[in-house]
């Protein structure tokens, strides 16, 4: 009896049975052109090789929330790398975030992301034929840009990011696409979302799903103004299924 209680206490302290799949995480540095870029790496328990996912920050920078998403995906069996596109800057002040997003050179961000794929592809515990990307907000747009600029990316989950509505511009895309959009988003209009889906189909691309949730911009981030718990739960179910199918063959 006493042993049982003790065991229970240990389990609770360890965070319950969910924590059974242990994730190790650490800060790493990788090369992008002549520069060194920092990133947050989360690795599932076991030897692998695992599929891998590049996790792309919102306009706030590489904050704890993004790291938590990277760890969450690692628990599902992916090696995840969240690159620091702002090169050391992070904020919770929208005024500063506006400036950081506004000044980010797009060519450099895409180069950093491709370099993150390079890094993952070189890891012994990564199956380099199974690399995906996910991003939110600014990172949602960059998730699509990475998939357009890097044929190694097999799966692209973009959460309320900038869309591309020209079928010709979508031609280079090899990845399967999952779109997560909010109908109350004041920037990405639902008409744009549907045009994006049509353009993907017209270009003959692999569309897993382009989903619309009745929520505003940034609805998946707990603590944010637009956070929507139900929509977030539903979106994550889709994301997990999407990556399981495209990267784990389930």
């Amino acid at each position: 009896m006493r042993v049982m209680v003790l065991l229970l206490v240990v389990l609770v302290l360890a965070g319950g049975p969910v924590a059974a799949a242990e994730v190790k995480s650490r800060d790493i540095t990788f090369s992008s052109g002549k520069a060194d870029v920092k990133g947050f790496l989360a690795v599932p328990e076991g030897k692998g090789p695992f599929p891998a996912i590049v996790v792309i920050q919102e306009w706030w920078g590489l904050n704890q929330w993004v790291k938590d998403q990277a760890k969450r995906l690692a628990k599902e069996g992916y090696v995840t790398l969240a690159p620091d596109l702002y090169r050391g800057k992070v904020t919770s002040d929208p005024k500063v975030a506006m400036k950081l997003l506004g000044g980010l050179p797009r060519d450099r961000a895409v180069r950093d992301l491709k370099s993150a794929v390079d890094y993952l592809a070189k890891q012994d515990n990564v199956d380099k034929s199974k690399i995906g990307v996910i991003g939110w907000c600014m990172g949602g747009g960059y998730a699509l840009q990475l998939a357009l600029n890097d044929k190694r990316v097999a799966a692209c989950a973009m959460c309320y990011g900038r869309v591309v509505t020209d079928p010709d511009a979508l031609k280079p895309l090899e990845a399967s696409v999952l779109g997560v959009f909010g109908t109350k988003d004041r920037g990405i209009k639902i008409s744009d979302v549907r045009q994006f889906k049509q353009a993907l189909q017209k270009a003959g691309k692999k569309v897993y799903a382009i989903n619309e949730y009745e929520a505003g911009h940034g609805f998946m981030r707990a603590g944010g103004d637009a956070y929507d718990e139900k929509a977030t739960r539903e979106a994550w179910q889709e994301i997990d299924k999407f990556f399981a199918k495209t990267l784990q063959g389930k």
Partner: protein
Amino acid sequence: MCRTFLLFLLAVAAGCQRAPGPPAGVVEEEVVLPAGGKGRGLLLLPPGEGRRPALVVLHDVYGLNEPIRRHAHRLAERGFVVLAVDLYRGEKIDTLMHAHEMDRALPEEQVRADLRAAVDFLLSQDEVRADDLGIIGWGMGGGYALDAAIAEPRLRACVNCGGRLTTDPAQLRRMKGAFLGLFAGKDEGNPPETLAEFRTALKEAGREKAGLHVFADCDAGFMNSAKPGPADEKAAQEAWERIDDFLARKLGRSS
């Protein structure tokens, strides 16, 4: 000629769309751009006769609002035919978060199409001297101005006020026109490291002549303010002197 077809004279009945404030003789008209008819903007015609140099003016994340309209008028008063493009296609911005949602959503191909249409439109105007076409933008619009200058050989001069830069020499090599960049030292978005990367890329592209100036004590958007007058009067005045000088040298004044 086809102006009547292209232009959307909103306020003929209402009187006019003339700017309030000092009547410098600039005439302002709302226009719908060709190629799809979805792009729009404000056309400002300076007083006087003959063909004039022309400028595309691009707003920051807050849209084509009063501060940007004042900038556009200021440039028209100095003799440029000005087309201030509304990249948000009519949507007005109320809050910072709204601005962010619009900024991060703006489809790049839509921007490219609107800017191509803007250049076509200006070059179709009888008042415009075709060889002297430039582009200027603030914040978000500064970044798009640089993109346009790279993509569009018809643009002979580009001013990027505090906007996004590129670090890719191959892109900068394609830029045919002259470049002036004005930045704020306290703008975390364009830190010294990024400006240094841009300088290196300029050098690798053989474009060392491009002008770059940093206003050390200023914050982003120092030339723009919701209130009349810029956020930083003295620095904004110096910035304008640099812009006026650059544009006069590269595009010339009205003749």
